[in-house]
């Protein structure tokens, strides 16, 4: 038993050992497999997994940068930032989005529509990206939220900064900021890396033009987070960069003053330094509250803006197009002198109308002005005189002068709302309307009607360039310290009164661009404008300022909205009797003070009736205000403030 058993045992034991050997071989293969996998994961693909691990570990939250500030010439902040109380929600951290919204609705006033759109937004973004529930809470709402915070997981009260505009007078030129739209993000390249919730971008005006520089640089907070999205520790914070601040050439005090004068009129005023092109004031009326746009405008206010027929949202000073009316007569006369078509003392007899090419052309004064020369024609704004001049001059020569002085093209750079207007000419008509020019249209152009279209800022530039003696200037709103050649030239001229300065010397020494052939012609026009404002019979004589410090020289203008019918002309219908929307636009351009011009102004009052009655009185007040502040302005910055 024992021996046979032991023999059996030995055979069995050999069998077991043989089979074990096979198993061991199998184990070795498996072991190689495991080892190979370890090599592949930890050596070959290690960098890939390291990246993935960091992706797990770190999460970044972008921080919206603080917008730069916009100041006026005297360093008053006209667009600044204020603290706002906001409520952010991180969807991942809530226990239930539905419940959180339900609770928030009970605490704050959030409409179902808003909740719906918020939910749509949440669905589109990563669960840890915060979404702004409300971006401008008042203190009582904010403190109420803080009171209930313990039962609102994922809701974070945030104190942030947002744009605030101090007054409405500069609303149009500054523009406003608002939430970046999908279109903004698509069109504006600089916004590509800036998709931060709550990021406001400039939509209009300077805010839009300066957006890229003023918006600042996005910062971020990098956190180590655990698997549940909880922030464990802060790894890195980049606070971003506050946007660049800008100083403008505007005078807030004047802005406010002008805004008050214009009140509810549909009107605009533009005031410009005639030597360096600094825009002192650019007001469009009526205005609106730009703050309403910062946190999303409410429907009611929006509707009231849209439905207002005086168009409060339009910046009339740069995008309102008006026929220049009689204000163009300055350029008609200048062009005729420059082209030696007329001499100043040549006369034309005005009998109230002329008939040419089978058409009647009326003077605004039915009974006629009698015998007119250039100076009296300007002074009394005689249409017949200018019909005659324009007829001799021809539209193309007029167009050339008009373009030279800034009509028909944008005055400012990159100002999205600005429009370029129209300076008609034979080739323009051929190109844009496809018809030949009629001679009758030349006469309409000669008194600034017909196809002529100009913006108030263009008229202001035109006046400034006449006032400074006929040199090109580049208007600007953003203050800069570049030296002013025109002023240096004038200083030089004042210091060396005897020395004649030929034109080519102007160009080479002072890099000036004269717009005239003979500067004497400019003087004649300025003198004619003086007479129009300061001599009895002048169209704006009633609005004159007698104080020598403020005396201005100007030119009125009325641009027809609707043509007068023969019946109306016979009945001597007054503008005040017409319906508001049919009344003429009232225009006025001027420069002041007469003996040492410093500023040019243009005033346009839509449907104001006549320039002398509606526009000139406004200009009178504004000119006085601006000139009163002149010495202060000069004192503020001595780099560009050399008095002459």
């Amino acid at each position, binding site marked *: 038993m024992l021996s046979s058993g032991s023999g059996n045992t030995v055979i069995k034991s050999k069998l077991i050992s043989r089979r074990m050997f096979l198993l061991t071989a199998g184990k070795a293969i498996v072991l190689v497999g495991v080892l190979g996998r370890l090599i592949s994961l930890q050596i070959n693909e290690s960098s890939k*997994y390291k990246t993935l691990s960091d992706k797990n570990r770190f999460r970044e939250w972008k921080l919206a940068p603080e917008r730069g500030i916009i100041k006026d010439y005297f360093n008053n902040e006209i667009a600044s930032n204020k603290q706002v109380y906001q409520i952010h929600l991180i969807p991942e951290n809530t226990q239930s989005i539905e419940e959180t919204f339900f609770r928030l609705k009970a605490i704050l006033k959030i409409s179902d529509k808003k909740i719906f759109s918020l939910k749509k937004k949440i669905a589109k973004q990563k669960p840890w990206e915060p979404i702004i529930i409300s971006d401008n809470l008042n203190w009582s709402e904010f403190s109420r939220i803080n009171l209930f915070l313990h039962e609102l997981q994922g809701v974070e009260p945030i104190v942030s900064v947002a744009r605030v505009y101090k007054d409405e007078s500069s609303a149009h030129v500054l523009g406003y900021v608002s939430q970046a739209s999908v279109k903004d993000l698509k069109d504006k390249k600089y916004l590509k890396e800036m998709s931060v919730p709550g990021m406001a971008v400039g939509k209009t005006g300077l805010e839009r033009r300066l957006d890229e520089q003023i918006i600042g640089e996005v910062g971020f907070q990098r956190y180590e987070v655990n698997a549940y999205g909880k922030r464990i520790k802060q790894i890195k914070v980049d606070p971003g960069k506050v946007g660049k601040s800008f100083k403008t050439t505007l005078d807030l005090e004047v802005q406010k003053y002008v805004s008050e004068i214009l009140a509810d009129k549909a009107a605009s005023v533009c005031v410009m330094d005639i030597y360096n092109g600094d825009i002192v004031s650019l007001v469009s009326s009526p205005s609106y509250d730009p703050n309403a746009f910062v946190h999303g405008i409410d429907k009611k206010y929006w509707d009231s803006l849209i439905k207002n027929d005086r168009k409060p949202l339009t910046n009339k000073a740069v995008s309102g197009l008006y026929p220049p009316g009689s204000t163009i007569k300055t350029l008609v006369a200048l062009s005729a002198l420059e082209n030696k078509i007329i001499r100043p003392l040549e006369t034309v007899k005005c009998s109230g109308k002329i008939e040419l090419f089978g058409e009647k052309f009326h003077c605004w004064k039915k009974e006629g002005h009698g015998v007119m020369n250039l100076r009296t024609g300007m002074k009394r704004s005689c249409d017949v005189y200018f019909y005659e001049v324009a007829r001799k001059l021809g539209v193309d020569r007029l167009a050339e002068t008009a373009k030279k002085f800034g009509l028909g093209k944008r005055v400012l750079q990159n100002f999205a709302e600005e429009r370029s207007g129209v300076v008609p000419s034979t080739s323009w008509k051929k190109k844009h309307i496809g018809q030949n020019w009629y001679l009758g249209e030349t006469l309409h152009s000669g008194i600034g009607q017909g196809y002529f279209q100009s913006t108030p800022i263009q008229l202001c530039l035109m006046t400034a360039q006449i006032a400074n003696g006929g040199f090109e200037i580049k208007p600007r709103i953003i203050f800069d310290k570049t030296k002013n050649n025109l002023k240096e030239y004038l200083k030089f001229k004042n210091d060396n009164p005897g020395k004649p300065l030929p034109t080519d010397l102007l160009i080479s020494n002072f890099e000036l661009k004269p717009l005239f052939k003979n500067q004497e012609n400019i003087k004649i026009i300025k003198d004619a404008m003086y007479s129009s404002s300061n001599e009895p019979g002048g169209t704006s004589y009633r609005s004159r300022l007698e104080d020598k410090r403020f005396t201005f020289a100007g030119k009125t203008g009325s641009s027809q909205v609707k043509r007068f019918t023969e019946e109306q002309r016979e009945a001597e219908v007054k503008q005040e009797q017409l319906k508001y929307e049919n009344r003429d636009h009232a225009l006025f351009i001027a420069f002041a003070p007469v003996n040492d011009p410093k500023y040019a102004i243009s005033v346009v009052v839509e449907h104001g009736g006549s320039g002398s009655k509606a526009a000139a009185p406004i200009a009178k007040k504004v000119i006085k205000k601006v000139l009163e502040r002149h010495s202060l302005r000069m004192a503020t910055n001595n780099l560009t403030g050399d008095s002459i």
Partner: protein
Amino acid sequence: MFRPRSIQSSLSFRDKLISIDYILVFSILILGIVSMFAMYSTDGGQFKYHTESHILRFCVFFIMFIILSFVQIRFWHSTSYLIYILFLILLLAVKYFGLTSSGSQRWLNLYFMNLQPSELMKIGLILFLSKYYHRIPIESINKLRFLFLPIFVLIFPVLLVIMQPDLGTSLLIAAGGLVVAWLAGVRVKFFAYSSLVFIALLPIAISFLKPYQKARILTFLNPEKDPLGAGYQIIQSKIAIGSGGLFGKGFLNGSQSYLDYLPEKHTDFIFTLFSEEFGFFGSVFILLLYGIIVSRIVKIGNITRSNFGKLYCYSFATAFFIYVVVNMGMVLGLLPIVGSPLPILSYGGSSMMAIMFGLGIAMSCKVYKDSPVN
């Protein structure tokens, strides 16, 4: 060389101490120490519940292992069936009195610990079959009627464990049993037939699987399909191991586990944690320790005289190897997540107890290597 029985049974304590396999003991000790560090790391670098109870368990069961080593091999042989039956009763008890946790009923509340009898059954089945094949004559091994009992003792506990449900452990129990049968000389054709039957029954078996088990298998086939759902564990485990690189992120610096990206880091994914913190070299070190343990047990099988001892040691070594490889394959994304602990390293009292019990018997084979079992 062939000493009389009387001499063998009267080994002095000194003789017994000398004959212990110290390389094996030290390897286990080192692994135990490593496991303490790993546990300390899962607790976030603090002495907390897991670390403390793991250390306690390791100490208790390590002492148990040494004590069991001095128990005569004859005792284990004679009580094999009894042990199996005891474990089977415990398994049945689980079915009726067991504790349920996260949807599966696996534990018995013994007041001082929660016992998971399915872990013990891994060893129990190997013991039973080792004795069974030791006893039947070599000619009878491949006779059909001698196959019924092994099949029954294998299938019965496996079914009980599947029903808990615990797929991973049941497969590992079955694997241990099959290894004994294979080593005893059961013909390849029987394995082939049974695998055919298994494949034929697979669709039916799958229909019995719980949805989460189905999901796990599908996930294994394509983990990237649902990265936040069922595939999450595999992906995060691979990221952790891969990001460990050559040298690892350093002790207590495993961001994946520290920041809770790793699931079940105490138990099934303890190797992932270690691998993340100690890198490729750390992983190979662990692999080496396991290799030494397995080869030492095989060596005991080589020198032990009785076929019971050989069968047991070889089977236990192979089963131990399978436990290690299945766990590693799982965390490395080579196998589906079935839930199997890594011997000694993983947190879990029953697993530790079963492994130490198994090691104790193996060591007893060493101490009483020349002693016949019957």
